[in-house]
Each structure stands twice: as C-alpha cells, then as structure tokens.
C-alpha cells in the first residue's frame, strides 16, 4: 500500500472528521447540529476501520451514530423552531464581559489541546512498552475465545464489563424515575410498514449472528445488543404498540439479567474456590457465551428504554384492568 496515498487518505478523513465536529457545534439550529453529529459518528466509524478497530467501528456506527443520533434527534424535535434569540450563541453584542469570557474559554481549551498533544508526543517518542499486547496474545488460547477484544472484555477484564452493565442498569433506573415514556408515534403508512416487516427479522438474525461470531471475529454482545435495540426503535418509530419489550416482572428480569448472570457466575466460581470471575479453562468459552447472551438482552432492553425516555406505558389486558382500577377509587 502506497504510504503517500494512505497519508492523503488519512489527512482527508481527519479533515472531514474535525470539520464535521466543528460544524455540528457551530450552528445555532439544534436539529442541524444533531444531524451533523450523526454524520460525524459515521465518518468516525470509517476512522476506526482505518485504525484496525473493527469491533469499535461496528459499535460506533450502531450505538454512537445510530442510537445516540436517534435519541438526540427525538429530543431536538421537542424544541421550538426557530430558537428564540436568547438561547443561541450567534455572535451578537454580549457586552465586553461576554466576549472576554468567550475568548478566555477558547484559550483555555486550546491550552488543554496543546497540553494533551505535548503529553502524547512525549509518549509516542519514548520506547514502546509492548507488555500488555504480548501478555494477551500469550494467554489468548486459554481464554476461551479467539477474538482478543472479546477476550479482554469478557475474560481478562470481565470485572470492568460487570461494572459497565451496572452503570447501564443505573442509567435506565434513573430514566425510570424521571417520568413516563415519550408519547408514541403515529402508525406507519404502507411504505414504512413494509420496510419494517422484513427489516426487524433481519435485524434480529444479524444480532444473533454477531453474538455468535464475536468469539472469533469482530462482533460480540454490545454490537448484537445494539442491533436488537435498533429493531425495537424501528418498531417504535413505525407506531407499533408492541415493540418486543417484555412487561412488568419480565422486563425487570431482562434489565437485571446482564448484571445478574455476571454476578451469579462470579459468585458461583468464588464458592467453588476459584477467584471471582476466574473461569476454569475448559468452561471459559461456554461461560462467556452465556454471559454475552444475557448481556445482549440487557443492553437491548436498556437502549430501547432509553429511546422510550421513561417508564413504558403498559399494554395488555392486565394493564387495562389496572387502569380501570385507578379510575374507580375503591378497587
């Protein structure tokens, strides 16, 4: 591969990434900013591919650009358009203090960037320590999977992933306490409905494939969970009332399944005399697949609930009976 052409490609890619980031933050129209942010996420995914990080590229395209963009766009549409002048940051006469403050903050951020760059250049020019990648490739055969990123996520650093699942659970519980879900969308017309009819099964299949293939190729629980969440979001956007989320107790079970199964496996291993989450080598692959399945369901439920924006409105016979009970005081 010609190094000069790679350099040109890198320069163009980075220029578009930085340009998109700047443009998304420089507009006063929030909707334009969000859409530019989605484009920024997608071009960033190309950069991940260039830097030999396909797992991260999949996750960025699905979660970072897709789901984040959907969340932000749904929120941006509740803003009135156009924005009233008081809440934009278009250049206008703040007075001297306002301008000085803006310049001070800009200087501060430039200084931060400069310090970071200096520190990084210092790190890059010193001799590289290759201990960690060497240790990982030496122990990869014993980890139960052959994809190094999956091995790091679910075996070598499984504790971090457990805590991450706990963070997801906390976030969705926080969202639950803040109110009811957003009102749904109107039922889709024939074109969108036709797309949804075949897109959702394909998404579910792809999620299953990504979960399975994550053991030996780019993929894994996070990307699979994002695919399932995308199926739920698409069903929600098409105005369906049933979007694949379980209800009541089952919903709580699915939400807690990620952390729950992780803890169960860890504590069982602890009881059996092994270190916490120290899988026995013969069982490592199976345990990782089990934990990844629970994590995928949990992540999908969390992301769909995040898109819903609050406690889901209950559907079904039992819920209708409950609603009737609320209307009659003595029930």
């Amino acid at each position, binding site marked *: 591969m010609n190094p000069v052409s790679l350099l040109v490609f890198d320069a163009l890619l980075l220029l578009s990434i930085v340009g998109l980031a700047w443009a998304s933050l420089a507009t006063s129209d929030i909707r334009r900013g969000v859409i530019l942010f989605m484009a920024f996420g997608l071009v960033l995914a190309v950069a991940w591919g260039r830097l030999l990080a396909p797992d991260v590229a999949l996750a960025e395209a699905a979660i970072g650009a897709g789901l984040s963009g959907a969340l932000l766009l749904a929120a941006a549409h509740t803003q009135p358009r156009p924005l009233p002048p008081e809440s934009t940051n278009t250049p206008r006469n703040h007075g001297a203090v306002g301008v000085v403050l803006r310049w001070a903050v800009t200087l501060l951020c430039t200084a931060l960037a400069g310090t970071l760059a200096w520190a990084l250049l210092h790190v890059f020019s010193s001799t590289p320590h290759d201990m960690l990648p060497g240790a990982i490739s030496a122990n990869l055969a014993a980890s139960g999977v052959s994809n190094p990123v999956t091995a790091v996520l679910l075996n070598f650093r499984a504790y971090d992933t457990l805590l991450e699942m706990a963070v997801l659970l906390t976030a969705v519980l926080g969202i639950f306490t803040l109110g009811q879900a957003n009102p749904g969308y109107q039922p889709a017309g024939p074109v*969108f409905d036709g797309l949804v009819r075949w897109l959702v099964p394909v998404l579910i299949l792809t999620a299953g494939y990504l979960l399975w293939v994550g053991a030996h190729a780019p993929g894994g629980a996070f990307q699979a969970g994002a695919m399932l969440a995308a199926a739920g979001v698409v069903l929600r956007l098409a105005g369906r009332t049933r979007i694949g989320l379980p209800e009541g107790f089952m919903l709580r079970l699915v939400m807690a399944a990620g952390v729950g199964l992780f803890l169960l496996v860890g504590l069982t291993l602890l009881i059996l005399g092994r270190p916490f989450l120290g899988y026995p080598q013969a069982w490592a692959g199976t345990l990782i697949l089990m934990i990844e399945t629970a994590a995928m369901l949990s992540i999908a439920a969390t992301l769909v609930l995040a898109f819903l924006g609050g406690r889901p409105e209950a559907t079904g016979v039992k819920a209708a009976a409950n609603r009737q009970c609320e209307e009659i005081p003595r029930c």
Partner: protein
Amino acid sequence: MINILSAILILAGVFFYLAGSIGLLRLPDLYSRLHALTKADNLGLGLLIAGLALHSQDLLIMLKLLLIWLAVLAASATSAHLIARQAHRQEKVS
C-alpha cells in the same frame, strides 16, 4: 485487468456521488433535491459495490456487499418517501 475494471467502476460510483451532492447543493426545492440524492446515491453505491466485489474476488464477500446494497436501497427509498410525505403535509397545512 480486474484491478483496472474495478477502479473504473469505483470512479464511476464516485462520479455519481459527486453528482448527487451537487444536486443537493444547487437544486431549488426539497423534492428535486431528494430525487437527485436518492437516485444518484443509490446508483453510485451500486457501482462502488460492484467495483469492490470485483476487487475482492471472494463469493461470500460479494454476497455480503450485495446484501448491503439492497438494504441501503430499501432504507434510502423509504426515508426519502417519508421526508417527501412530511414536507407535502406541512405544505398543505400552511
């Protein structure tokens, strides 16, 4: 030989993308812009994928690329329809 053919296909795809982008920037109203974007970009993607498929010379990769093209075709057609329908409804109201 295959490389030259695939390069030609990729360049043709890029040309169509360029045409679609110029259409997005220069055409007067929403509907003509949607038309330019959807048609040119889908054809551009198809040519790009044909070039990449030729370059890869692996049947599985060719099939995956074809699936990608079909999925993007369906998604972009549906979203163009939704955007145009919403714009039409807002015009009728105002």
